[in-house]
């Protein structure tokens, strides 16, 4: 690998190491995840008992809970890149980075992936342990473990460009958190964050199927509990297309925005 790319790998490595230093803080801040999982398990236990069935839309109770572990792992392992970029634009820190020998967006992407990997490990550990203790395990396809790591990277690449595009709107807006919440929650609703898309009514499912959000949450989460090799290819293709599309939008927003930056000496 050339030096040009090695430096980004180094940025990711440093991001992981700096997060490891705050391991306990990270674990404590994931207590909410334990609460979320506990409440969801109670809800679905009652639901399965009420329906008196073993599976809904093809998901057994443990599979439903592990699907939620996977969606939470994807969402909670995402560093708040929109907030970081917004802050850098507002504080002017962005100007300090412009003369550094790296691409601004790639630098943040590397940090995003590095920090995200660490978060993923803690979320999976805590969420997985909670799910295992409450509903037991499921038939996870262990040989595909490296594939899941790859899928996590591709999924978060699409998520990075999606969120970073919103964060960079700070070039024009005083506050982007409201807009981000809008974009993020649309992604949650139509990306199958809380329920597998198979449970949605047909009309909503049809809308979800033409949008990119299912490749950003539901697709990889479904593969996590119901792995097939065909499913991997069916996910990677659209992720590549949407990743390139969001990447192009994000780069365009950045290039337009950075023209507005005035750098003064001092």
């Amino acid at each position, binding site marked *: 690998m050339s030096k040009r790319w090695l430096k980004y790998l180094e940025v990711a490595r440093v991001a992981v190491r700096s997060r490891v230093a705050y391991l306990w803080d990270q674990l404590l801040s994931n207590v909410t995840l334990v*609460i*979320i999982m506990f409440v969801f398990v*109670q809800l679905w236990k009652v*639901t399965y008992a009420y329906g008196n069935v073993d599976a809904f839309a093809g998901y057994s109770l443990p599979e439903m809970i592990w699907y939620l572990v996977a969606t939470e792992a994807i969402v909670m392992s995402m560093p708040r890149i929109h907030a970081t970029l917004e802050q850098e634009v507002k504080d002017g820190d962005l100007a300090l980075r412009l003369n550094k020998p790296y691409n601004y967006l790639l630098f943040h992407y590397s940090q995003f992936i590095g920090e995200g990997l660490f978060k993923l490990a803690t979320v999976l550990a805590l969420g997985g342990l909670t799910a295992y203790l409450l509903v037991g395990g499921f038939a996870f396809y262990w040989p595909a473990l490296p594939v899941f790591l790859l899928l996590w990277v591709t999924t978060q690449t699409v998520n990075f460009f999606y969120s970073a595009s919103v964060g960079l709107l700070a070039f024009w807006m005083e506050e982007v958190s409201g807009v981000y919440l809008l974009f993020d*929650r649309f992604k949650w609703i139509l990306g199958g964050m809380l329920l597998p898309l198979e449970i949605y009514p047909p009309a909503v499912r049809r809308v979800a199927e033409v949008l990119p959000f299912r490749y950003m949450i539901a697709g990889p989460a479904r593969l996590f509990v119901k792995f097939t090799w065909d499913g991997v290819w069916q996910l990677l293709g659209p992720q590549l297309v949407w990743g390139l599309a969001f990447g192009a939008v994000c780069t365009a927003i950045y290039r337009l925005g950075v023209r507005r930056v005035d750098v003064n000496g001092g």
Partner: protein
Amino acid sequence: MAKFFAFVGAYLKVNLAAALEYRASAVSQVLGMFINDGLWVMFWMLYFTKFPVIRGWTLEDVVVMWAVVTVSVGLAMGLTFNARRIPELVAQGQLDYYLTLPKDVLLHLLVSRISIFNLGDMLFGPVVLVLLVKLTWARVAVFLVASVLAAIIMMAFSVLTGSLTFYMGNSETLSAQLFNTVLHFSTYPAPIFDTGVKVVLFTLIPAGFISTVPVELVREFHWMQFLELLGAAALFSGLAVVVFRHGLKRYESGNLMMMRS
């Protein structure tokens, strides 16, 4: 009492004017929270399409629950956002400002910051209620009173957990986790939990008083249950004031020179 309302009203007016200075971002925050809350109601609508009743609770009950919780979060956090910032303010020695002024420290602290995001919650509750629930004037009245009492409990809980900082050093993460816990439990029907959890939800983590009791009151009013809610609001707010004032005696000034914004 008139002085109290004049003081709170003056702060609210100034804070709102400051927030509306950036109108586009204020609107986007309110709209963002609307969509956020809407997501959860949509989740329940999808859920109840498949399972119409869950241990006696229907979609209408869950919608009332969301309306109560969002209005009470809107009131508690939208209008007194500093209730959530107590650990940060104490740890950074920022209480000095309030200590030098003649108003009650806790009251002054609470009303001096609003959260536009949470004002979105406050607007969401009535909208979803009108759109999805069969209403009578009596039900509306019960809803409003119960939401205010739930807001008082939520604010008091936040002050109580925030006051831990006086005793533990910085309890920012712990306070945030406890607040998130009460909020999370408040947004699910209590009947899904077993007895042990329910006991916790009506004592240590008062989520039951914030959502379940108001929902049951709106469904069918009982004086006894209403008095329980009133008692819980009085107990938690009294406890919050006592613990905050006791903790304040342990506060050490930050000797910080800073601009307040």
